[in-house]
């Protein structure tokens, strides 16, 4: 189809969908309604398991199977992207050249921010059952902290801090642990992914049973996964050259 025809087909379809959506909205409850049946069940369920962050309770306790699926999607995408971005026989992986000159201030900033962001990341992970955030958000923060070194032009130190195999192992073993913890619940007869650990006391660091454990495991999986993922893109952007275009080795 040419551009005109394509737009016409799309326009017809979009108009139809708009009508459908408008008709559907006529039957929707008002925005901001106080009628939320699932919420009315989820909040007491979270409190019963001493989890102050109800979203974490839904994610890691009540609907933990969804989150297991989410972790596996993450794992699959990381493995998939690694496979898709592998250097082909016609490409060479050169050690990245030290980046251009970077202002001293930037380097200083990055080095100061690195420990700080790492701490924030860890904090977000371990308090996932109490405050907003959790394994996922904290994991990405941890992975990003590492990449501040790239911002500072220190790609070599990044490469040293990043023996990629380790991160693959961290990711793989974390994802396996998530499923494994689920199987423990099954083995104890409480059900797959059941919250079998002692619940502790509400709003305490030691509370919510398996929720913080799964949060930490997720943090590991996400941090490892995000580092591996970004490494693939960094290698492509900075390290891989087709053999023909290669001028001098390393």
């Amino acid at each position, binding site marked *: 189809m040419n551009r005109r025809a394509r737009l016409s087909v799309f326009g017809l379809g*979009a108009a139809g969908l*708009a009508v459908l959506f408008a008709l559907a909205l006529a039957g929707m409850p008002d925005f901001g309604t106080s009628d939320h049946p699932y919420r009315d069940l989820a909040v007491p369920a979270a*409190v019963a398991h001493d989890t102050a962050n109800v979203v974490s309770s839904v994610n890691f306790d009540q609907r933990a199977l969804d989150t297991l699926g989410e972790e596996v999607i993450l794992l699959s995408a990381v493995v998939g992207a690694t496979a898709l*971005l592998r250097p082909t026989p016609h490409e060479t992986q050169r050690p990245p050249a030290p980046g251009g000159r970077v202002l001293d201030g930037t380097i200083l900033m990055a080095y100061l921010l690195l420990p700080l962001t790492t701490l924030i990341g860890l904090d977000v992970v371990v308090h996932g059952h109490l405050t907003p955030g959790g394994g996922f958000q904290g994991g990405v923060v941890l992975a990003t902290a590492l990449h501040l070194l790239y911002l500072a032009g220190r790609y070599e130190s990044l490469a040293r801090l990043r023996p990629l195999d380790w991160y693959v192992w961290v990711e793989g073993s974390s994802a396996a642990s998530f499923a494994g913890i689920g199987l423990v619940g099954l083995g104890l007869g409480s059900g797959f992914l059941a919250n079998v650990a002692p619940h502790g006391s509400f709003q305490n660091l030691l509370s919510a049973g398996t929720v913080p454990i799964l949060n930490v495991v997720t943090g590991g999986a996400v941090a490892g996964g995000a580092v591996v993922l970004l490494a693939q*893109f960094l290698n492509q952007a900075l390290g891989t050259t087709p053999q023909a275009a290669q001028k001098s080795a390393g």
Partner: protein
Amino acid sequence: MGVLAYAVAGWLVIVGALGMLRSRNLVQATVALSVAQSGTYVFLLAIGYQWSATAPVFSSGSPPTNQVVDPVVQAMALTDIVVSAMVTALLLALTIQIEKTHRTLDPDELQRLKG
């Protein structure tokens, strides 16, 4: 007001699809797809909103109450965000390889899968 939130969600999905349709570069199509998906988060969170309710996190000292916005849609949106990021990552990886093998990213010039 009530309809605005839902309408914005629908708008993002359609405008994202339009962006994919019009794109002259697959990176642009990938980004447009992620815009389309952001419509789904907006939709989910709009459904779970409640006027003058607080976030579903009971910080220390605050007693548990039912007057919080729906935590379930938030959990769904979280999952959705991860899915979106991962699909985007795979698409970008494919885009890099398409550029390597075809030397172009313009859908109009990718002519190999015909008939």
